Protein backbone atom coordinates (compact mmCIF):
# COMPACT_ATOMS: atom_id res chain seq x y z
CA UNK A 1 0.00 0.00 0.00
CA UNK A 2 1.43 3.39 -1.01
CA UNK A 3 1.68 6.48 1.20
CA UNK A 4 1.29 10.05 -0.03
CA UNK A 5 3.10 12.88 1.75
CA UNK A 6 2.62 16.62 1.40
CA UNK A 7 5.98 18.37 1.14
CA UNK A 8 5.91 22.05 2.08
CA UNK A 9 8.51 24.27 0.46
CA UNK A 10 9.40 27.94 0.86
CA UNK A 11 11.91 30.03 -1.04
CA UNK A 12 13.50 27.08 -2.78
CA UNK A 13 13.86 24.70 0.16
CA UNK A 14 11.72 22.02 1.71
CA UNK A 15 10.48 22.25 5.28
CA UNK A 16 12.48 20.06 7.66
CA UNK A 17 9.31 18.50 9.05
CA UNK A 18 8.12 17.67 5.55
CA UNK A 19 11.42 15.95 4.80
CA UNK A 20 10.95 13.99 8.03
CA UNK A 21 7.49 12.96 6.86
CA UNK A 22 8.88 11.78 3.50
CA UNK A 23 11.50 9.65 5.26
CA UNK A 24 8.94 8.28 7.73
CA UNK A 25 6.63 7.37 4.84
CA UNK A 26 9.50 5.58 3.08
CA UNK A 27 10.36 3.59 6.21
CA UNK A 28 6.71 2.63 6.74
CA UNK A 29 5.88 1.94 3.08
CA UNK A 30 8.65 -0.66 2.89
CA UNK A 31 6.96 -2.49 5.77
CA UNK A 32 3.51 -2.55 4.17
CA UNK A 33 4.65 -3.39 0.66
CA UNK A 34 4.36 0.01 -0.93
CA UNK A 35 6.16 3.18 -1.89
CA UNK A 36 6.35 6.70 -0.53
CA UNK A 37 5.29 9.45 -2.91
CA UNK A 38 5.15 13.18 -2.30
CA UNK A 39 3.03 16.04 -3.58
CA UNK A 40 4.32 19.58 -3.89
CA UNK A 41 2.23 22.57 -4.85
CA UNK A 42 3.31 26.04 -5.84
CA UNK A 43 4.35 28.34 -8.66
CA UNK A 44 5.60 26.33 -11.63
CA UNK A 45 8.81 28.35 -12.07
CA UNK A 46 9.82 27.67 -8.48
CA UNK A 47 9.11 23.95 -8.49
CA UNK A 48 12.00 22.91 -10.70
CA UNK A 49 12.73 19.28 -11.59
CA UNK A 50 15.88 19.62 -9.53
CA UNK A 51 14.05 20.80 -6.39
CA UNK A 52 11.30 18.16 -6.65
CA UNK A 53 13.81 15.43 -7.41
CA UNK A 54 15.64 16.17 -4.15
CA UNK A 55 12.87 14.37 -2.27
CA UNK A 56 14.22 11.14 -3.78
CA UNK A 57 17.17 11.12 -1.40
CA UNK A 58 14.74 11.24 1.54
CA UNK A 59 12.89 8.19 0.27
CA UNK A 60 10.20 9.36 -2.17
CA UNK A 61 10.18 7.43 -5.44
CA UNK A 62 7.71 9.74 -7.16
CA UNK A 63 6.85 13.42 -6.75
CA UNK A 64 3.61 14.94 -8.00
CA UNK A 65 4.03 18.56 -8.98
CA UNK A 66 0.87 20.67 -8.86
CA UNK A 67 0.51 24.33 -9.74
CA UNK A 68 -1.38 26.60 -7.34
CA UNK A 69 -1.16 29.30 -4.72
CA UNK A 70 1.34 28.59 -1.93
CA UNK A 71 0.72 28.72 1.78
CA UNK A 72 -3.00 27.87 1.71
CA UNK A 73 -4.43 24.48 2.60
CA UNK A 74 -7.50 24.04 0.45
CA UNK A 75 -5.74 24.05 -2.97
CA UNK A 76 -3.51 21.25 -1.62
CA UNK A 77 -6.61 19.38 -0.40
CA UNK A 78 -7.97 19.58 -3.97
CA UNK A 79 -4.74 18.21 -5.45
CA UNK A 80 -4.15 15.48 -2.87
CA UNK A 81 -7.78 14.31 -2.94
CA UNK A 82 -7.53 13.85 -6.68
CA UNK A 83 -4.22 11.95 -6.56
CA UNK A 84 -5.36 9.76 -3.67
CA UNK A 85 -8.66 8.94 -5.41
CA UNK A 86 -7.11 8.31 -8.84
CA UNK A 87 -4.12 6.29 -7.68
CA UNK A 88 -5.49 4.55 -4.59
CA UNK A 89 -3.30 5.58 -1.67
CA UNK A 90 -3.89 4.00 1.73
CA UNK A 91 -2.48 6.80 3.86
CA UNK A 92 -1.70 10.50 3.74
CA UNK A 93 1.13 11.59 6.02
CA UNK A 94 2.06 15.08 7.24
CA UNK A 95 4.97 16.41 9.28
CA UNK A 96 4.41 18.83 12.15
CA UNK A 97 3.35 22.36 11.33
CA UNK A 98 0.24 24.36 10.64
CA UNK A 99 -0.63 23.49 7.04
CA UNK A 100 -0.48 19.76 7.69
CA UNK A 101 -3.30 20.05 10.22
CA UNK A 102 -5.44 22.01 7.79
CA UNK A 103 -4.77 19.86 4.74
CA UNK A 104 -5.17 16.63 6.69
CA UNK A 105 -8.46 17.84 8.16
CA UNK A 106 -9.70 18.86 4.72
CA UNK A 107 -8.97 15.37 3.41
CA UNK A 108 -10.95 13.87 6.30
CA UNK A 109 -14.10 15.51 4.98
CA UNK A 110 -13.29 15.10 1.28
CA UNK A 111 -12.38 11.39 1.45
CA UNK A 112 -14.39 10.32 4.52
CA UNK A 113 -11.07 9.43 6.12
CA UNK A 114 -10.01 8.81 9.70
CA UNK A 115 -7.42 11.14 11.19
CA UNK A 116 -4.93 11.17 14.05
CA UNK A 117 -3.17 14.36 15.11
CA UNK A 118 -0.02 15.05 17.15
CA UNK A 119 1.32 11.62 16.23
CA UNK A 120 4.72 10.84 17.74
CA UNK A 121 5.27 7.40 16.22
CA UNK A 122 3.75 5.14 13.57
CA UNK A 123 4.18 1.39 13.26
CA UNK A 124 3.17 -1.21 10.72
CA UNK A 125 1.10 -4.15 11.90
CA UNK A 126 -0.27 -6.78 9.52
CA UNK A 127 0.00 -4.51 6.48
CA UNK A 128 -1.72 -1.62 8.21
CA UNK A 129 -0.44 1.42 10.03
CA UNK A 130 -1.11 2.21 13.66
CA UNK A 131 -0.54 5.76 14.86
CA UNK A 132 0.61 6.49 18.38
CA UNK A 133 -0.74 9.66 19.86
CA UNK A 134 0.12 11.02 23.31
CA UNK A 135 -2.91 12.39 25.15
CA UNK A 136 -3.70 14.15 28.42
CA UNK A 137 -0.55 16.30 28.49
CA UNK A 138 1.55 13.31 27.40
CA UNK A 139 0.57 11.24 30.44
CA UNK A 140 -0.75 8.43 28.27
CA UNK A 141 -0.27 7.21 24.70
CA UNK A 142 -3.15 5.98 22.58
CA UNK A 143 -2.80 3.50 19.70
CA UNK A 144 -5.09 4.57 16.87
CA UNK A 145 -6.17 2.26 14.07
CA UNK A 146 -8.01 3.21 10.93
CA UNK A 147 -11.36 1.90 9.71
CA UNK A 148 -11.49 3.84 6.47
CA UNK A 149 -10.01 3.32 2.99
CA UNK A 150 -7.69 6.27 3.62
CA UNK A 151 -5.99 7.08 6.92
CA UNK A 152 -4.67 10.57 7.61
CA UNK A 153 -1.64 10.82 9.91
CA UNK A 154 -0.56 14.25 11.14
CA UNK A 155 2.78 14.18 12.96
CA UNK A 156 3.83 16.24 15.92
CA UNK A 157 6.61 18.75 15.31
CA UNK A 158 9.98 16.98 15.01
CA UNK A 159 8.39 13.54 15.44
CA UNK A 160 9.77 12.17 12.18
CA UNK A 161 13.46 12.26 11.38
CA UNK A 162 14.62 13.31 7.95
CA UNK A 163 17.15 10.91 6.42
CA UNK A 164 18.73 11.83 3.09
CA UNK A 165 20.30 8.42 2.66
CA UNK A 166 17.03 6.53 2.24
CA UNK A 167 16.66 6.93 -1.52
CA UNK A 168 18.75 5.71 -4.41
CA UNK A 169 18.60 8.85 -6.53
CA UNK A 170 16.33 11.61 -7.75
CA UNK A 171 12.60 10.93 -7.56
CA UNK A 172 10.64 10.88 -10.80
CA UNK A 173 8.55 14.02 -11.22
CA UNK A 174 5.01 13.90 -12.59
CA UNK A 175 2.94 16.99 -13.31
CA UNK A 176 -0.60 16.71 -12.05
CA UNK A 177 -3.56 18.85 -13.05
CA UNK A 178 -6.57 19.09 -10.80
CA UNK A 179 -9.83 20.95 -10.52
CA UNK A 180 -10.02 23.64 -7.87
CA UNK A 181 -12.96 23.39 -5.50
CA UNK A 182 -15.09 26.55 -5.24
CA UNK A 183 -14.00 27.13 -1.63
CA UNK A 184 -10.28 26.90 -2.38
CA UNK A 185 -10.53 29.95 -4.63
CA UNK A 186 -12.22 32.09 -2.01
CA UNK A 187 -9.23 32.67 0.23
CA UNK A 188 -6.24 34.55 -1.14
CA UNK A 189 -2.81 35.19 0.31
CA UNK A 190 -2.15 38.90 0.77
CA UNK A 191 1.32 38.60 2.29
CA UNK A 192 3.31 35.63 3.52
CA UNK A 193 6.15 35.07 5.94
CA UNK A 194 6.23 38.53 7.51
CA UNK A 195 8.92 38.72 10.21
CA UNK A 196 7.85 40.71 13.25
CA UNK A 197 10.33 42.18 15.70
CA UNK A 198 14.11 42.18 15.59
CA UNK A 199 15.98 39.32 13.97
CA UNK A 200 17.70 37.41 16.75
CA UNK A 201 19.67 34.18 16.72
CA UNK A 202 18.63 31.72 19.38
CA UNK A 203 19.56 28.47 17.69
CA UNK A 204 23.28 28.72 18.43
CA UNK A 205 22.94 29.85 22.06
CA UNK A 206 24.17 27.42 24.71
CA UNK A 207 21.94 29.07 27.31
CA UNK A 208 18.40 30.23 26.61
CA UNK A 209 16.26 32.20 29.02
CA UNK A 210 12.68 31.94 27.77
CA UNK A 211 9.66 33.94 28.80
CA UNK A 212 5.92 33.28 28.58
CA UNK A 213 2.65 34.88 29.52
CA UNK A 214 3.53 34.61 33.21
CA UNK A 215 5.80 37.64 32.72
CA UNK A 216 2.61 39.68 32.82
CA UNK A 217 3.71 42.33 30.33
CA UNK A 218 6.20 43.05 27.55
CA UNK A 219 8.49 44.85 29.99
CA UNK A 220 8.92 41.57 31.84
CA UNK A 221 11.44 40.59 29.16
CA UNK A 222 13.87 43.24 30.40
CA UNK A 223 14.61 41.15 33.47
CA UNK A 224 15.09 38.07 31.30
CA UNK A 225 17.49 39.95 29.02
CA UNK A 226 19.53 40.93 32.07
CA UNK A 227 19.64 37.32 33.25
CA UNK A 228 20.52 36.03 29.78
CA UNK A 229 23.25 38.67 29.57
CA UNK A 230 24.68 37.58 32.90
CA UNK A 231 24.68 33.94 31.80
CA UNK A 232 26.10 34.63 28.36
CA UNK A 233 22.93 33.38 26.70
CA UNK A 234 20.03 34.61 24.60
CA UNK A 235 16.34 35.24 25.21
CA UNK A 236 13.55 33.12 23.72
CA UNK A 237 9.75 33.35 23.90
CA UNK A 238 6.52 31.41 23.65
CA UNK A 239 4.03 31.84 20.84
CA UNK A 240 1.48 33.50 23.12
CA UNK A 241 3.75 36.42 23.94
CA UNK A 242 5.05 36.71 20.37
CA UNK A 243 1.49 36.87 19.05
CA UNK A 244 0.79 39.49 21.71
CA UNK A 245 3.70 41.55 20.35
CA UNK A 246 5.85 41.33 23.50
CA UNK A 247 8.84 39.76 21.77
CA UNK A 248 10.36 38.95 18.37
CA UNK A 249 8.97 36.17 16.21
CA UNK A 250 12.52 35.06 15.43
CA UNK A 251 12.96 34.16 19.12
CA UNK A 252 9.88 31.95 19.27
CA UNK A 253 10.10 28.32 20.36
CA UNK A 254 7.66 25.58 19.40
CA UNK A 255 4.96 24.58 16.94
CA UNK A 256 5.32 27.40 14.40
CA UNK A 257 8.68 28.64 15.67
CA UNK A 258 12.15 27.30 16.31
CA UNK A 259 13.30 24.00 17.73
CA UNK A 260 16.25 24.30 20.10
CA UNK A 261 18.38 22.06 22.31
CA UNK A 262 20.71 24.27 24.36
CA UNK A 263 22.77 23.11 27.31
CA UNK A 264 20.47 25.07 29.60
CA UNK A 265 16.88 26.15 28.98
CA UNK A 266 15.51 28.37 31.72
CA UNK A 267 11.76 28.87 31.35
CA UNK A 268 10.21 31.79 33.23
CA UNK A 269 6.44 32.13 33.41
CA UNK A 270 5.89 29.35 30.85
CA UNK A 271 3.15 26.81 31.59
CA UNK A 272 4.64 24.17 29.29
CA UNK A 273 1.90 23.51 26.75
CA UNK A 274 2.66 20.72 24.26
CA UNK A 275 3.06 23.28 21.46
CA UNK A 276 5.97 24.79 23.38
CA UNK A 277 7.35 21.55 24.72
CA UNK A 278 7.92 20.10 21.25
CA UNK A 279 10.35 22.90 20.48
CA UNK A 280 12.59 22.61 23.55
CA UNK A 281 12.21 19.19 25.17
CA UNK A 282 15.58 17.97 23.92
CA UNK A 283 17.42 20.69 25.88
CA UNK A 284 20.11 19.15 28.08
CA UNK A 285 18.96 20.85 31.28
CA UNK A 286 15.56 22.42 31.84
CA UNK A 287 14.93 24.82 34.70
CA UNK A 288 11.44 26.26 35.19
CA UNK A 289 10.18 29.11 37.33
CA UNK A 290 6.41 29.30 37.66
CA UNK A 291 4.05 30.40 40.38
CA UNK A 292 1.57 27.64 39.56
CA UNK A 293 2.76 24.39 41.13
CA UNK A 294 0.43 22.47 38.77
CA UNK A 295 2.02 23.89 35.60
CA UNK A 296 2.79 21.05 33.16
CA UNK A 297 6.33 22.34 32.68
CA UNK A 298 7.30 20.95 36.08
CA UNK A 299 6.64 17.48 34.71
CA UNK A 300 9.53 17.72 32.26
CA UNK A 301 11.91 20.11 33.97
CA UNK A 302 15.03 18.98 35.80
CA UNK A 303 14.78 21.77 38.35
CA UNK A 304 11.47 23.45 39.09
CA UNK A 305 11.03 26.55 41.22
CA UNK A 306 7.53 27.34 42.43
CA UNK A 307 7.53 31.05 43.07
CA UNK A 308 7.23 34.60 41.80
CA UNK A 309 9.61 35.18 38.91
CA UNK A 310 9.58 38.93 39.54
CA UNK A 311 11.25 38.27 42.88
CA UNK A 312 13.51 35.42 41.81
CA UNK A 313 14.88 36.52 38.41
CA UNK A 314 16.53 39.82 39.50
CA UNK A 315 18.18 38.16 42.49
CA UNK A 316 19.28 35.23 40.35
CA UNK A 317 20.82 37.67 37.87
CA UNK A 318 22.84 39.33 40.62
CA UNK A 319 23.93 35.97 42.05
CA UNK A 320 25.03 34.70 38.61
CA UNK A 321 26.99 37.90 38.01
CA UNK A 322 28.69 37.55 41.39
CA UNK A 323 29.50 33.90 40.70
CA UNK A 324 30.88 34.52 37.23
CA UNK A 325 32.83 37.55 38.40
CA UNK A 326 34.57 35.56 41.11
Amino acid at each position, binding site marked *: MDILVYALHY*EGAFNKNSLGAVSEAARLASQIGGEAHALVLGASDELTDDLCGQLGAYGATKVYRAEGPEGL*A*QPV*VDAMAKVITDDGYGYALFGGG*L*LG*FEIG*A*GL*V*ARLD*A*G*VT*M*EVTAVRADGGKLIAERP*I*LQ*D*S*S*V*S*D*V*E*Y*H*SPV*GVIIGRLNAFEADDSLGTGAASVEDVTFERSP*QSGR*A*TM*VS*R*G*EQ*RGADVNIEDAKVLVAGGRGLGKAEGFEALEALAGAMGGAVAATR*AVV*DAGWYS*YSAQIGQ*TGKTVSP*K*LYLAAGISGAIQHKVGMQSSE*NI*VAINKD*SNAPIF*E*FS*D*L*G*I*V*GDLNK*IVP*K*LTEAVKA*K*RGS
Partner: protein
Amino acid sequence: MKICVLVKEVPDAAVEKRIDPATGRMDRSGEKNLNPFDTHAIEAAMQLKEGGELAVDEVVAVTMGPDSAVRALHKAVSLGADRSVHLSDDALEGSDVNGTGYALSRALAAEAPDLVLLGQQSDDGECYTIGAVVAEHLNAPSLTQVIKIDVEAGKLRCERQAEYGYDTVLVELPAVISVGDAINEPRYPSLKAIMGAKKKPLEKLAIGDVGIAPDRVGYANARARCGDFHAPPAKQAGQIIEDEDTNETVEKIVAWLDERKLI
Protein backbone atom coordinates in the same frame (compact mmCIF):
# COMPACT_ATOMS: atom_id res chain seq x y z
CA MET B 1 -26.01 38.31 8.71
CA LYS B 2 -25.54 35.44 11.12
CA ILE B 3 -22.45 34.25 12.96
CA CYS B 4 -22.40 30.77 14.48
CA VAL B 5 -19.81 30.08 17.16
CA LEU B 6 -18.89 26.46 17.82
CA VAL B 7 -18.33 25.89 21.52
CA LYS B 8 -17.37 22.92 23.57
CA GLU B 9 -17.41 21.84 27.16
CA VAL B 10 -14.00 20.64 28.31
CA PRO B 11 -12.58 19.18 31.49
CA ASP B 12 -11.85 21.78 34.09
CA ALA B 13 -8.08 22.26 34.17
CA ALA B 14 -8.20 21.68 37.91
CA VAL B 15 -9.85 18.28 37.50
CA GLU B 16 -7.49 15.43 36.80
CA LYS B 17 -8.19 13.91 33.40
CA ARG B 18 -8.10 10.19 32.91
CA ILE B 19 -9.07 7.40 30.57
CA ASP B 20 -11.95 5.22 31.70
CA PRO B 21 -10.44 1.72 31.65
CA ALA B 22 -13.86 0.14 31.03
CA THR B 23 -14.57 2.01 27.80
CA GLY B 24 -11.12 3.13 26.71
CA ARG B 25 -12.46 6.64 26.28
CA MET B 26 -11.88 9.92 28.04
CA ASP B 27 -13.68 10.06 31.35
CA ARG B 28 -15.62 13.29 30.89
CA SER B 29 -17.49 13.19 34.19
CA GLY B 30 -15.40 16.01 35.68
CA GLU B 31 -16.18 18.38 32.82
CA LYS B 32 -17.60 21.73 33.56
CA ASN B 33 -15.91 24.52 31.70
CA LEU B 34 -16.37 26.25 28.39
CA ASN B 35 -13.22 25.61 26.35
CA PRO B 36 -11.11 28.75 26.99
CA PHE B 37 -10.29 29.15 23.29
CA ASP B 38 -14.01 29.27 22.51
CA THR B 39 -14.46 32.33 24.73
CA HIS B 40 -12.10 34.12 22.34
CA ALA B 41 -14.25 32.99 19.40
CA ILE B 42 -17.37 34.40 21.04
CA GLU B 43 -15.56 37.65 21.80
CA ALA B 44 -14.44 37.85 18.15
CA ALA B 45 -18.07 37.40 17.07
CA MET B 46 -19.22 40.11 19.49
CA GLN B 47 -16.58 42.52 18.24
CA LEU B 48 -17.64 41.93 14.64
CA LYS B 49 -21.26 42.51 15.63
CA GLU B 50 -20.51 45.63 17.64
CA GLY B 51 -17.97 46.95 15.12
CA GLY B 52 -20.80 47.48 12.67
CA GLU B 53 -18.76 46.91 9.49
CA LEU B 54 -20.69 43.70 8.94
CA ALA B 55 -24.44 43.86 9.53
CA VAL B 56 -24.54 41.04 12.08
CA ASP B 57 -28.10 40.35 13.22
CA GLU B 58 -27.38 37.51 15.56
CA VAL B 59 -24.69 35.37 17.14
CA VAL B 60 -25.66 31.74 17.69
CA ALA B 61 -23.68 29.36 19.92
CA VAL B 62 -23.66 25.76 18.70
CA THR B 63 -22.42 22.72 20.57
CA MET B 64 -22.48 18.96 20.31
CA GLY B 65 -22.36 16.92 23.48
CA PRO B 66 -24.29 15.29 26.29
CA ASP B 67 -26.90 17.05 28.46
CA SER B 68 -24.21 18.65 30.61
CA ALA B 69 -22.91 20.58 27.58
CA VAL B 70 -25.83 22.93 28.10
CA ARG B 71 -23.63 24.71 30.62
CA ALA B 72 -21.18 25.65 27.86
CA LEU B 73 -24.09 27.15 25.94
CA HIS B 74 -25.28 29.14 28.96
CA LYS B 75 -21.78 30.49 29.38
CA ALA B 76 -21.63 31.38 25.66
CA VAL B 77 -24.95 33.20 25.91
CA SER B 78 -23.81 35.05 29.02
CA LEU B 79 -20.84 36.26 26.97
CA GLY B 80 -23.14 37.70 24.34
CA ALA B 81 -24.59 35.03 22.05
CA ASP B 82 -28.27 35.69 21.25
CA ARG B 83 -29.38 32.07 21.32
CA SER B 84 -27.97 28.58 21.20
CA VAL B 85 -28.27 25.19 19.51
CA HIS B 86 -27.53 21.93 21.30
CA LEU B 87 -26.92 18.88 19.12
CA SER B 88 -27.31 15.97 21.48
CA ASP B 89 -28.00 12.36 20.70
CA ASP B 90 -26.85 9.05 22.15
CA ALA B 91 -25.87 8.03 18.62
CA LEU B 92 -23.15 10.71 18.61
CA GLU B 93 -21.31 9.36 21.62
CA GLY B 94 -17.69 8.46 20.94
CA SER B 95 -17.57 10.13 17.52
CA ASP B 96 -14.09 10.78 16.15
CA VAL B 97 -12.94 13.94 14.36
CA ASN B 98 -14.48 12.69 11.12
CA GLY B 99 -17.89 12.04 12.70
CA THR B 100 -17.86 15.14 14.89
CA GLY B 101 -16.95 17.45 12.01
CA TYR B 102 -19.62 15.88 9.82
CA ALA B 103 -22.34 16.10 12.50
CA LEU B 104 -21.50 19.71 13.38
CA SER B 105 -21.55 20.65 9.71
CA ARG B 106 -25.11 19.28 9.41
CA ALA B 107 -26.27 21.33 12.39
CA LEU B 108 -24.54 24.39 10.93
CA ALA B 109 -25.99 23.83 7.47
CA ALA B 110 -29.46 24.09 9.03
CA GLU B 111 -28.52 27.52 10.39
CA ALA B 112 -26.88 28.65 7.11
CA PRO B 113 -24.52 31.11 8.83
CA ASP B 114 -22.43 33.70 7.00
CA LEU B 115 -19.51 33.02 9.29
CA VAL B 116 -18.56 30.18 11.61
CA LEU B 117 -16.05 30.95 14.36
CA LEU B 118 -14.44 28.51 16.79
CA GLY B 119 -11.47 28.21 19.12
CA GLN B 120 -8.41 26.74 17.41
CA GLN B 121 -7.95 23.97 19.95
CA SER B 122 -9.38 22.39 23.04
CA ASP B 123 -7.61 20.94 26.03
CA ASP B 124 -8.95 17.49 25.43
CA GLY B 125 -8.23 16.63 21.89
CA GLU B 126 -9.37 17.80 18.51
CA CYS B 127 -6.62 20.34 18.09
CA TYR B 128 -6.69 22.55 15.03
CA THR B 129 -8.73 20.18 12.86
CA ILE B 130 -12.48 20.52 13.45
CA GLY B 131 -12.77 23.92 11.73
CA ALA B 132 -11.16 22.67 8.53
CA VAL B 133 -13.31 19.50 8.50
CA VAL B 134 -16.49 21.52 8.96
CA ALA B 135 -15.42 24.01 6.26
CA GLU B 136 -14.97 21.28 3.64
CA HIS B 137 -18.40 19.85 4.39
CA LEU B 138 -19.91 23.31 4.00
CA ASN B 139 -17.84 24.08 0.86
CA ALA B 140 -16.58 27.16 2.65
CA PRO B 141 -13.10 28.70 2.67
CA SER B 142 -11.30 28.11 5.91
CA LEU B 143 -8.42 29.44 7.94
CA THR B 144 -7.26 28.23 11.35
CA GLN B 145 -5.19 29.73 14.19
CA VAL B 146 -6.17 33.31 13.30
CA ILE B 147 -5.05 36.09 15.66
CA LYS B 148 -6.50 39.18 13.95
CA ILE B 149 -9.66 39.74 11.91
CA ASP B 150 -10.46 42.98 10.08
CA VAL B 151 -13.41 43.58 7.80
CA GLU B 152 -12.40 44.74 4.34
CA ALA B 153 -15.13 45.37 1.78
CA GLY B 154 -17.30 42.55 3.06
CA LYS B 155 -14.38 40.12 3.27
CA LEU B 156 -12.28 39.19 6.28
CA ARG B 157 -8.63 40.13 6.37
CA CYS B 158 -7.07 37.55 8.68
CA GLU B 159 -3.62 37.30 10.18
CA ARG B 160 -1.94 34.28 11.63
CA GLN B 161 1.43 32.86 12.39
CA ALA B 162 2.43 30.05 10.03
CA GLU B 163 5.62 28.10 9.35
CA TYR B 164 7.64 31.01 7.99
CA GLY B 165 6.28 34.06 9.80
CA TYR B 166 3.02 35.96 9.81
CA ASP B 167 0.62 35.45 6.90
CA THR B 168 -2.23 37.75 5.93
CA VAL B 169 -5.10 36.08 4.06
CA LEU B 170 -8.24 37.61 2.60
CA VAL B 171 -11.21 35.29 3.11
CA GLU B 172 -14.60 35.61 1.43
CA LEU B 173 -17.83 34.89 3.31
CA PRO B 174 -19.35 32.50 4.14
CA ALA B 175 -16.27 31.11 5.84
CA VAL B 176 -15.10 28.99 8.77
CA ILE B 177 -12.37 30.54 10.91
CA SER B 178 -10.71 29.22 14.06
CA VAL B 179 -9.04 31.70 16.37
CA GLY B 180 -6.12 31.69 18.77
CA ASP B 181 -6.11 33.24 22.21
CA ALA B 182 -4.03 36.24 21.11
CA ILE B 183 -6.97 37.57 19.07
CA ASN B 184 -8.68 39.41 21.94
CA GLU B 185 -9.32 39.63 25.66
CA PRO B 186 -12.72 38.07 26.30
CA ARG B 187 -15.06 40.23 28.37
CA TYR B 188 -16.41 39.10 31.69
CA PRO B 189 -20.12 38.38 31.67
CA SER B 190 -22.24 40.74 33.77
CA LEU B 191 -24.26 39.30 36.63
CA LYS B 192 -27.39 40.23 34.70
CA ALA B 193 -26.15 38.33 31.63
CA ILE B 194 -25.35 35.27 33.73
CA MET B 195 -28.80 35.35 35.36
CA GLY B 196 -30.51 35.90 32.01
CA ALA B 197 -28.59 33.22 30.09
CA LYS B 198 -31.02 30.43 30.89
CA LYS B 199 -33.93 32.45 29.51
CA LYS B 200 -32.43 32.88 26.04
CA PRO B 201 -33.75 30.52 23.33
CA LEU B 202 -32.05 27.12 23.31
CA GLU B 203 -32.90 24.64 20.60
CA LYS B 204 -32.17 20.99 21.18
CA LEU B 205 -31.52 18.83 18.12
CA ALA B 206 -31.33 15.08 17.64
CA ILE B 207 -29.48 13.61 14.67
CA GLY B 208 -32.68 13.08 12.69
CA ASP B 209 -33.58 16.78 12.95
CA VAL B 210 -30.66 17.83 10.77
CA GLY B 211 -30.29 14.76 8.55
CA ILE B 212 -27.25 13.18 10.22
CA ALA B 213 -26.74 9.66 8.91
CA PRO B 214 -26.52 7.34 11.94
CA ASP B 215 -23.91 5.16 10.25
CA ARG B 216 -21.43 8.05 10.04
CA VAL B 217 -21.28 8.95 13.72
CA GLY B 218 -20.60 7.34 17.09
CA TYR B 219 -17.75 5.18 18.29
CA ALA B 220 -18.78 2.14 16.23
CA ASN B 221 -18.45 4.21 13.06
CA ALA B 222 -15.29 6.06 13.98
CA ARG B 223 -12.84 6.06 11.07
CA ALA B 224 -9.96 6.43 13.49
CA ARG B 225 -10.43 4.34 16.59
CA CYS B 226 -8.44 4.63 19.80
CA GLY B 227 -7.41 1.17 20.87
CA ASP B 228 -4.86 0.44 23.53
CA PHE B 229 -3.51 2.99 25.93
CA HIS B 230 -0.06 2.72 27.37
CA ALA B 231 2.25 4.83 29.47
CA PRO B 232 4.85 6.97 27.69
CA PRO B 233 8.54 6.40 28.41
CA ALA B 234 9.03 7.56 31.97
CA LYS B 235 11.07 10.68 32.61
CA GLN B 236 12.64 10.97 36.00
CA ALA B 237 10.89 13.66 37.99
CA GLY B 238 12.96 16.77 38.51
CA GLN B 239 13.79 18.46 41.77
CA ILE B 240 11.25 21.02 43.00
CA ILE B 241 12.01 24.05 45.16
CA GLU B 242 9.16 25.97 46.78
CA ASP B 243 10.28 29.57 47.05
CA GLU B 244 9.88 30.70 50.63
CA ASP B 245 13.06 32.64 51.24
CA THR B 246 14.16 34.01 47.85
CA ASN B 247 17.81 34.47 48.84
CA GLU B 248 17.95 30.85 49.85
CA THR B 249 16.13 29.75 46.68
CA VAL B 250 18.58 31.65 44.51
CA GLU B 251 21.52 30.08 46.36
CA LYS B 252 20.08 26.65 45.62
CA ILE B 253 19.57 27.44 41.95
CA VAL B 254 23.12 28.74 41.57
CA ALA B 255 24.51 25.66 43.33
CA TRP B 256 22.45 23.41 41.06
CA LEU B 257 23.69 25.22 37.95
CA ASP B 258 27.26 25.28 39.21
CA GLU B 259 27.22 21.56 39.90
CA ARG B 260 26.34 20.99 36.24
CA LYS B 261 28.92 23.56 35.06
CA LEU B 262 26.19 25.70 33.53
CA ILE B 263 27.54 29.00 34.84
